[in-house]
Structures are given as C-alpha cells and as structure tokens.
C-alpha cells in the first residue's frame, strides 16, 4: 500500500484561537504580542491587519500609530505548540498516527485510512469541515510524501489539494523554492540566481546542487519526491492493538455506550485470541461531537482476553464519561498486552494464586477502589524491619528466600513512635515506658537484638530491639536508637505489637 500523508496548514492559527475565546474581538483589528527586548513585538496578526501590510515581528507601537483602535492580546511562548498538540490529539480520530509541525501545522499519516471516508477528497473535506466548525481556516494537502504535502498545503493554489501517487514532481514544479522547507540563506541564493520555482532546478543533478547550495537542498528534494524516506514522529506511540467504531448518529445513552464497548472488546479479544495475547491495560476512548476526547482506563492482574470480564471492569467506570450532545466515535486500545499462558479447563477450579477468577476479583477491586490497593508481599533479604519484605511484582512470583524465623511483631507502626522510658543500665531492657499517656510496667523482656542500618542503602544509627511484656500480658517491640552514651539522652521508640 503506498504511503499517504496529509498536511494541515493553519494560516491564522493563533488569531483564530483568540477569536474563538473572545467573541468581543470580532470585527476589530487586533494583534498578539509578546515582550521582546523591552518592547512589545507582534507575534501574530489578524487577517484584517495583515491585509493592511503589517507583519509579524513589527513593534506594536508602530502599528498603533497607524491603527489607533488596535487591540493587543498578550501572547505566551509555547502556546502555539500547546494548541497544536491539543488539536493533534483530537485529530487522532482521523488516523492513529499524528505529528505536529510547529508552529503552524499538523501532519497525519493517512495510509490505509481514507477508504473509510470513501475517497481522499471526502477525507480532506471532512477534516476541513470539522476544523472550520472550530473556527480554523485550513489549507490541506494529501500526497505520497510529507515534503510534498507540506509544500502543497502552504504554497498550493487551492485550499484542498490531492496529489496522486507519483505526481509529486509535477505538482511541486510551479511552487517557489521555500516550499521545500529550506534555510533562508539557500532560498535567497536561489532567488538571486533566478531559480524562482522548484521546476527550474529539480532536474539538475544532486551533485551540482550539493556543490552550490549545500547538502540540505538535494536531501529535501529527495524527501519530497519519496526517494529518501522521511520518518514521521507521532505525538503518541501508535498502539498495535486497537479497534475503532464510528457511529452513524451521536450516542448519548449508557446503553448505547455499553453496546459500542461490547462490540469493540469482542473485536479486540477475537484478534488477541488469534495471537495468543491478553490485555493487561486497556483504554476506551470516546470522541464527542464538540471535539472533546474522553478516555477511561482499566488494568488487569493477569492477561485477559475474556470480553465479559473486560466489559465488567469498564462498566464500573462508564459513569465517568460525559456524553453531553453525544459521542461520534469510539475506540479501544490495548497499550499493554502479554502472552497468555493457556490453562486447561480443570485449572479453572484449582485453588491458589494462579487462579484466573482470583485475578478477576482483584481487577474488580482495583477497578472500583483505585489502583495500588492490593498488595502481595514477598520476603526480602534484609534484617531492617521496614525492608524485610517487598511488594511482589505479580501473582505468580514465588518467594526467592524464606520468611524470617526470628520473633517479629504482627503489627508494625509505619513510623516508630517515641516513648518515655526508664531503663536501668546500658543494654538492659526498660523497667517501664509511657506510650500515649499510659504507663506500662514491664514484667518480662527479651533482647536486645541489634539491627544495623544497612549503610550501603542508607546511613543511620543501629537499633537495639527488645520484646517486652507488660503487667496485662500485652507484648510490644521497643528499640533504643544508637549506642548508649552517658552524655546525651538515649532515645527509645515503640515499633510494633506482638500477638
């Protein structure tokens, strides 16, 4: 399939964006300006003012002298890039692969997309109409290379141009050299030599051009003609597993959304089943007719390709979608898939952590109550209590080491709490301690067990742990921080409770 690229050029991107937000500027001359070296310089001009001959880069004061009623809107650096990125995300409804051409354009990889619109002209017309509804004037071109589409969108005669595959050279012929995305110096030199259009020099040998105009010119020509490949850098990586569903009529009801979801998930699962993969993470996207893009995300604990389970997980979150006037398109993407370990049917009823239904239960919990609430712990080879266990990466992971056989409390405070202690001599357990205002007299004690702070992880003082039991039989884990030193008060902490 030959590659097809669409370039969208916004001649008045920033001013039209301002007009969209500020209706009061309609019909008034205005410019966007930013402070530059102590004076306000114009960064964008509205079409009216542009017609009077004012250009970007002039000082605001000069323009104001000629147009006293001029309105000035403050511009921030990077705003155009931000706006283009937002438009680019929205444009993923036309193709999954979208790149920005900062400061004034977008580029879409439309390979294999246009037939869904019944032809390239319809496709471009649809894009143009959708952007016109947002208030943007556009020049759009489709061609076999990014370079040719870029040139036609900016320098072509018609706002919509379709260049058939292989026709790039003919289409580029009458355009000025600047359409090849050249450096200003090269354009100047071409102008001086009387090469006013691309047609004048496109057939000269690349060795000749390279000698006179540098390596940039022949490379740009090759790129525009498709001799040299020009990679497109998409804003977001295209997920290989995705399904799309455009709607004839806007969908506003929950029932409708669920139907779309069901259909998409079944399509995706069928494909995943063929490739032996399962979903770990899936995103359900919905494009609203007022150009708002909404998404809900789910995650699973084990790779899953069961539509019923996935639908159930999404259903917990469908409330988050706001259809307002309706959704016109849905898509499901699976950015994270894993190979499925096929289980025999008998294993379904098997008890244990590898159980599929257990994973589904956990998905349900995290789906409703938020990620990161389910923990499974494995022993870790550290004596330091806080580091003696670690979170397991998956349900299948087996402990690499044994759980400690030392006496350890069953409940441990997240941060040790300081307690007031009366202890006789160094290295003896305390006689009594006060915790939360209650005095505990110690009847029995064990210890000390010295645990060093592992200096290769974090520097710190060691702890001398004592297991103590009060008069009621309640058992605590106390420790003294650091060495006993007659000069400074020793610090005691309560760290845990034994059963």
């Amino acid at each position, binding site marked *: 399939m030959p590659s097809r690229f669409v370039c969208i050029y916004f001649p008045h991107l920033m001013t039209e964006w301002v007009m969209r937000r500020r209706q009061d500027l309609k019909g008034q001359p205005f410019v966007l300006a930013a402070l530059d070296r102590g004076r306000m310089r114009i960064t964008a001009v509205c079409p009216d003012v542009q017609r009077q001959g004012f250009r970007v880069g002039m000082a605001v004061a000069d323009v104001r002298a000629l147009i006293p009623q001029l309105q000035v809107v403050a511009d921030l650096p990077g705003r155009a890039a931000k706006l283009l990125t937002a438009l680019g995300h929205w444009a993923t409804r036309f193709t999954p692969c979208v790149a920005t051409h900062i400061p004034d354009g977008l580029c879409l990889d439309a390979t294999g997309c246009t037939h869904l619109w019944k032809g390239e002209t319809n496709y471009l017309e649809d894009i143009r109409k959708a952007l016109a509804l947002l208030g943007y004037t556009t020049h759009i071109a489709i061609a076999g290379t990014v370079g040719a589409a870029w040139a036609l969108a900016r320098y072509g005669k018609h706002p919509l141009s379709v260049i058939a595959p292989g026709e790039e050279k003919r289409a580029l012929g009458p355009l000025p050299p600047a359409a090849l995305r050249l450096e200003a110096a090269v354009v100047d030199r071409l102008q001086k030599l009387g090469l006013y259009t691309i047609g004048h020099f496109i057939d000269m040998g690349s060795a000749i051009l390279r000698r006179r105009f540098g390596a940039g010119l022949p490379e740009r020509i090759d790129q525009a003609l498709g001799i040299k490949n020009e990679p497109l850098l998409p804003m977001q990586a295209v997920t290989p597993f995705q399904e799309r569903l455009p709607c004839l009529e806007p969908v506003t009801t929950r029932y409708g959304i669920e139907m779309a979801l069901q259909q998409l998930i079944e399509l995706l699962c069928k494909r995943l089943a063929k490739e032996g993969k399962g979903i770990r993470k899936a995103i359900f996207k919905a494009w609203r007719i007022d150009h708002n893009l909404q998404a809900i995300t789910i995650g699973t604990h084990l790779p899953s390709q069961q539509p019923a389970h996935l639908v159930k997980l999404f259903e917990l979150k469908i409330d988050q979608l706001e259809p307002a006037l309706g959704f016109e398109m849905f898509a499901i993407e699976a950015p994270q898939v894993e190979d499925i370990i096929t289980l025999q049917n008998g294993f379904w*009823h098997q*008890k*244990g*952590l590898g*159980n599929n*239904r*257990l994973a589904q*239960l*956990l998905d*349900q*919990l995290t789906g*409703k*109550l938020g990620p990161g*609430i*389910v*923990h*499974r*712990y*494995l*022993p870790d080879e550290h004596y330091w*209590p806080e580091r*003696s*266990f670690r979170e*397991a990466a998956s349900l299948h992971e*087996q*402990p690499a080491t044994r*759980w*400690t*056989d030392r*006496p*350890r*409390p*069953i*409940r*441990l*405070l*997240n941060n040790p709490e300081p307690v007031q202690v009366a202890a006789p001599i160094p290295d003896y357990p305390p006689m009594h301690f006060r915790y939360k205002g209650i005095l505990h007299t110690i*009847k*029995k*004690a*064990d210890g000390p067990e010295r645990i060093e702070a592992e200096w290769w992880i974090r520097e710190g003082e060691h702890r001398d742990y004592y*297991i*103590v*039991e009060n008069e*009621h*039989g*309640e*058992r605590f884990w106390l420790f003294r921080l650091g060495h006993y030193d007659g000069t400074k008060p020793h610090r005691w902490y309560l760290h*845990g*409770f*034994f*059963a």
Partner: protein
Amino acid sequence: MAQLRQEISRMQGQKPINGQLEGKLRLGPVNNAFPQKIFPLGAIHEWITTSGATAAATTGFIAAILGDLMRDNGPSVWISPDGLLFPPGFSTFGLQPDRILFVQVKKEKDICWAMETCLQMEGLSAVVSELPALDFNISRRLQLAVEKSGVTGFVMRTNRNLHPTACVSRWRISAAPSYHEQSLPGVTLPCWNVELLKMRGGSTGRWKLLWQDGGFQEPVVDRVANPSLLRKIS
C-alpha cells in the same frame, strides 16, 4: 446418629457446613464449643477488638486459624484501613504471608463492598476485614454472600457498640501473660484469654490458650479451669 444431629441442626435453622476441612482446626479445647465439634466454615465470625493491644492479639489468633484454613492451598484476603500489618510476623503462626493478599482501603463503605465482593468468590480460603462498626444489615449481606460461596469471613470490629448481628459467632481475644511450663525467663510462648461470647448451635466459653509447636494448647496450670457459660444463646 450423626445424620440425626444434622437433621436437628437444620431444623434449628442452621445451614449445613459447606466446606470440608481435612482434620480439625488446631484450636485444642475450643473445638468442643462448636456445633458437632467442627469450626463452622462458610460463615461470618465476629471479633471484638476495642484497643490496639487487643487488635494485635486478635490478629495473631486469626492468623493462627488462617494457617489451618489455608492448608488447602487457597489464598486469603485481608482488608484493613491502615497498613499496619507486618507480613513477616505472620509466619510465626504457620502460614505463608505471600499467600495473603493485603487490601488497603480507607472508607468504611468501600471495606464493606470489598469484603462482600471477596466473599462471593469461591476458591478463597478466608477473608478478614477490619471494620469500625458492624450492624445487622451489613452482617446479613456478608452472611448471604458467604452462603453461596462457602468462604469463611472474619470481621474485626473496633466499635464498642455491640449491635445484634447475623454472624455465627462472637469472640473476644485479649493478651495474657506469656507462659512456659518450665517458667523460663523472658517473654516465652504467646498466651491469650479467649472468650467465645456467642456460638450459634454451640456453647460459649472462656479459655486460656497458648501457641506452642504450631497449635493451641491450654497452659498446664489452667488445664483444670472449666469453661464457664457466659450467656445462653438460643
């Protein structure tokens, strides 16, 4: 005779025991208080834990029971509002902490929902949750969930208000001074005062138990102490 007993217990409104466990729980003398001397599985048990120290004692006691319930290789879920449980401490009671899934949820409503969802899932050995309050409605819902799946549920309630509940039993565990036959110095074997305040179809009682060699035993001095009947439950 056994059939007749089952018949009677069914007529008393007691559901037949769902799960079958190989052997009894290592609960020592407490087993006598249960209906047919078998710990009721597939039911909700309520544990009164009013203070931090009793919470630790109860956690240990439940962990010991879990160790028995998880012998069939089923995982358990422990739902708690705070992350205070210390997994390495669980291995003392003869269970593998890596087979417990710890769920940390703050809101009471969410804990209830999570507990109910977990209880509906067959294949879990037990579900433990720490709830501030347990009223009749919640306990009834949990009980209904359990009746279908046969999972055993434990609710540690921290509120002092004791509402009537649909739970099959009500326990109170408190710490007792550690004990050793030979009066060794230092903190020796963990010991608890176990009160069974309610047991449907069984009897109530009070025991002193210690944990030794992977099972509960009565201390020698207290072995003559008789379980006193606290409250008669119809």
